[in-house]
């Protein structure tokens, strides 16, 4: 009896498995409708893509009392870019991105930001600004092309809403002195800033420049700061960032 039950069960399993694989669609296509071309595409009316950016904050116009270390001061961004095409050569759009600006402060003798403690090489001081950025832009495309981004030049204006942090780190093996302090949203740092943007690119790659127009620091309200540093506010950090962006498409 057991033997028949086994065979019966086996038959049921076989029938089920055959039933499951009785038909399999291996090609299923809808014909592209040429009379109603796609609205979305690299050179169609609408286009949306992610991008990554990495730039170096340049020492251009920097103040010796608040110098950055070039090469270690950078911007990183991850964003979403929207483009609306007016014509083959003119588009407008908006980028939205998450930005990190990392200013690595040079420890020279004149340095007064974020304090005037002079630790020579052992100290690491950073001003980090993490922000949500909105960047409306105008794009001029150059050259005839099909459904491709092609060569272009962008000019735009950015608005940043930031959260700021100042990090001081000191390690000295000889004296066994170690400390790290983090100041979140220091009162002297301005949270919102703006600037101009320009880039030139070809397909997914572009080189960009951002120039911050607004200041990073308020005037001191605390007389102790004024007395300690001999200035009304911290000198501005450099404003110009140059880097590359890579479109993820």
């Amino acid at each position, binding site marked *: 009896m057991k033997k028949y039950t086994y065979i019966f069960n086996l038959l049921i399993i076989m029938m089920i498995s*055959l039933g499951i*694989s*009785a*038909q*399999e*669609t*291996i*090609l*299923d*296509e*809808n*014909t*592209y409708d*040429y009379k109603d*071309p*796609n609205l979305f*595409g690299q*050179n169609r009316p609408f286009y949306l893509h992610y991008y990554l950016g990495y730039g170096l904050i*340049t*020492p*251009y116009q920097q103040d010796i009392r608040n110098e950055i270390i*070039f090469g270690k001061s950078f911007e990183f961004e991850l964003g979403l870019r929207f483009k609306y095409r007016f014509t083959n050569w003119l588009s407008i759009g908006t980028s939205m991105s998450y930005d990190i600006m990392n200013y690595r402060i040079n420890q020279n003798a004149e340095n007064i930001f974020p304090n005037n403690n002079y630790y020579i090489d052992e100290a690491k001081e950073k001003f980090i600004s993490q922000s949500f950025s909105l960047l409306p832009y105008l794009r001029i495309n*150059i*050259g*005839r*092309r*099909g*459904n*491709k981004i092609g*060569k272009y030049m962008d000019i735009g204006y950015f608005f940043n809403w930031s959260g700021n942090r100042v990090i001081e780190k000191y390690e000295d093996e000889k004296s066994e002195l170690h400390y790290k302090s983090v100041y979140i949203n220091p009162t002297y740092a301005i949270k919102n800033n703006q600037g101009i943007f320009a880039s*030139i690119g*070809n397909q997914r790659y572009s*080189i960009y*420049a951002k120039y911050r127009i607004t200041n990073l620091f308020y005037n001191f309200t605390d007389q102790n700061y004024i007395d300690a540093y001999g200035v009304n506010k911290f000198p501005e950090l450099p404003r110009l960032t*140059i880097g590359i962006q890579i479109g993820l498409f």
Partner: protein
Amino acid sequence: MMNQFKKITILILISIFFGNWVQGQQNEQAYWIFLSDKNDVTFDPYAYFDQKAIDRRMKHNLSLSHFTDWPLNNSYIQIVKENSDSILGQTRWFNAIAVMANPEQIIALQKLSCVREVRPMKYYAVTAATEHISSTSDIDNDKKNQLESMEYHLFQEAGIDGKGVRIAIFDGGFPGVNTISALKPIIESGRLIMTWDFTKNKENVFYSISHGTNVMSCIGGVDFDGNAIGMATGAEYLLAKTEIKREPYSEEKNWLEAVEWADKNGAEIINSSLGYTSDRYFQEDMDGEKSLVAKAANMAASKGILVVNAAGNDGDSGWEIIGTPADADSVLAIGGVSPESLIHISFSSYGPTATGTMKPNVCAFGQAYVAEKGGGYSIASGTSFASPLVAGFAACALQANPNLKTMELFHLIEQSGHLYPYFDYAHGFGIPQASYILNQTRDSIPFSLNTSQSSDGIFAEILYPGKFQIGEYRYLYANISNSDGLIIKYKVIKINQSKIEVFSNEELEDLFFDQDDSNLQVSFFYSGCHRSMSIQEL
């Protein structure tokens, strides 16, 4: 001091990038200068054409002295030369000169009375190859079946090997063609008639990328044992190097010059495995009219040459559809199928053209056994290799039917497709079959399909042969077309039971919603049987 150095470095880097970018926009570009007429030129067809080209024209009842074959007016060439930076080439067929010129020169050229039109040159072609696979477990099967899928043994038994047919191959390079054993029979018997490198204007084409070597082996090569891996082992060959990997502008010019060269030298079939797609065009531009190479390919057909072109490898990319010149209506566009299933291989570009013309026309293996430049063999993927397999087939078909004119041959090859008269935009009419070429009849197959529609969708019931063995699978092809004859949806279903759901009601509702057309037709193909009916008849 250090800071100063950094600032200068940054400025220099920016200047270089920006300078190059701007320079790229302002400098000279390549243009076609179309001339107004060919007044005062002389032309001797017997001095210009190869005897085979003259024979072909006579077969097609074409004039030996057609306007499009006349040379360009020398004085016009001189004037254009004086008003441009350099001359890149010329085309008799279109009465045009390719030049490099800056914007000021172009304005001056447009004002000349001998200039009819100035058009920027298109560029960036891509070869329709994807990758090389060094080995697969089924390599021997692939080798055997790439020809047998087209019933090669029937040509072989009839002693047909493309003898006397002249084939021109346009490609990126042919290294090893003159040395490898796979092509030795062609070289040793003097059937490599002529070569020309249009990228450097010299005779040697046996260098650069080996794509052309792979392609040629799929037309007329043999394996280590002397067995054919392409059907046209007895054909004659013209080799034109027309492509440089990614050099702007030149390839379109080279293709146009090569097609005239092939015509002049008596080619009856051209195999081209390149296509222009999204760099310069939108999908809706693939209408067989917009690009100069499509026009040239159609003109080649009108002069009696069968142009066989790869459909392209964009089936699984954002572009999806065929490129140009595969979009030209007189070009035999070749799609790729998987060697295992004989069903569309994922990368093979889909049709139709932007005007709704069916493409691809037929298909062949999209993964083929090819000869390598070093003397070995490998499996290569791409419709680049489907195209030469069919070019070899076409040479055999022409040898078997020498009186056929080009478009008759074109339609005969379509009719020989294993799906004919069924077609879709992935397979065209299917894989060409030698039996039809030789007999021009098809075996009568008993009616085997019953169809019905219910509230769940459209069903097909296989009546004969409807009995399936356990583990046995067959393929049902089905499509729905609108009243303009345009297929709007198509499928291939792998089945192992008699009754199957082909289109669900949801799919039909979507189609009716999109089409607003009550005259939809449903077509089925199964095991040699084709049936087509109005959706209301179901």
